């Protein structure tokens, strides 16, 4: 869901989306990114280093979380900066997968009333997994 608004008040939700991650999504990201760390696809390796299970790449979580903002922007602008803190891992069950929820809200507006910074709330299994996830946007 995205809201096609160019002006918006602070706190307005401009986009939200749930993304269901499966193990094949992790393998696909491994190939696309070149990050073949086996904790992202092998249960035995994840267990051997004390993890609760195979984890999504943090950069996959970061990467998918910004997509609702890109869709909301459409052809009107581009993403000027994007930063996150990795605060909790996303455990991806081999059968059930995991669902990552993204809510994008206006954090600040520019002097024309257009969103300048979008703040993301990114959750999985009821907990926030990215901290201080902020996107600044630039309009053409």
């Amino acid at each position, binding site marked *: 869901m995205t809201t096609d608004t160019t002006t918006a008040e602070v706190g307005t939700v401009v986009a939200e989306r749930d993304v269901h991650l499966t193990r094949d999504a992790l393998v696909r990201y491994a190939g*696309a990114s*070149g990050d073949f760390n*086996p904790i992202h696809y092998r249960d035995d*390796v994840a267990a051997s280093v004390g993890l609760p299970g195979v984890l999504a790449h943090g950069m996959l979580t970061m*990467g998918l979380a910004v997509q609702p903002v890109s869709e909301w922007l*459409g052809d009107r602008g581009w993403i000027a900066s994007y930063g996150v803190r*990795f*605060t909790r*891992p996303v455990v991806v069950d081999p059968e059930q997968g995991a669902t990552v929820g993204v809510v994008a809200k206006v954090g600040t507006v520019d002097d024309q009333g257009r969103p300048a910074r979008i703040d993301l709330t990114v959750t999985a299994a009821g907990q926030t997994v990215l901290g201080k996830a902020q996107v600044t946007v630039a309009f053409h």
Partner: protein
Amino acid sequence: MTTRSAPGLATSPDVTAPRVTDACSWTPALSGGVGRLPVVSVNPELVGRTFPPAPPYLVGREKVREFARATFATNPIHHETAAARAAGHDDVVAPATFAVVVQEATLAQLLAEPDAGIDFSRVVHGEQKFTYARPIVAGDELTATLTVTSVKTLGGNAMVTAESTMTDATGEHVVTATSTLVVRGDDA
């Protein structure tokens, strides 16, 4: 430098280059070690060090599309040249985190630096940021150069922040990728 592996971290036995893992199960350990002396031996003289530029990375259109699919990108500017050009870009636009693919070679340089004191089996990814002068598009040839901007010690762990500045074939700045790596101490 110790070789003892820490719980919560992978040592990536089947990859050849040092790699940062982004497992986050170490978080509770960050509050440990109170009253103990810091034991991480990251070299503080790394601050300000700039590494040689990594070999240029040519951004391929199909690689952008592959990365866009893998990150669930839905905006057509990441997939279709016509949509990207209609939006004013030269070619398909790389998703905002694509620069990590280019940054990777520079982080490998840092982790392999002999006097850095960074045991990559103890490294986790703490923070990541991308700051763009313009979007990356297919056809860009990017050259990335890493500079260490900060080394801090916190609760027995070390935090190393490095900026990889990427320029295009004309030398213009395109994006800076900033990573903060947490190097867990012996007590963690």
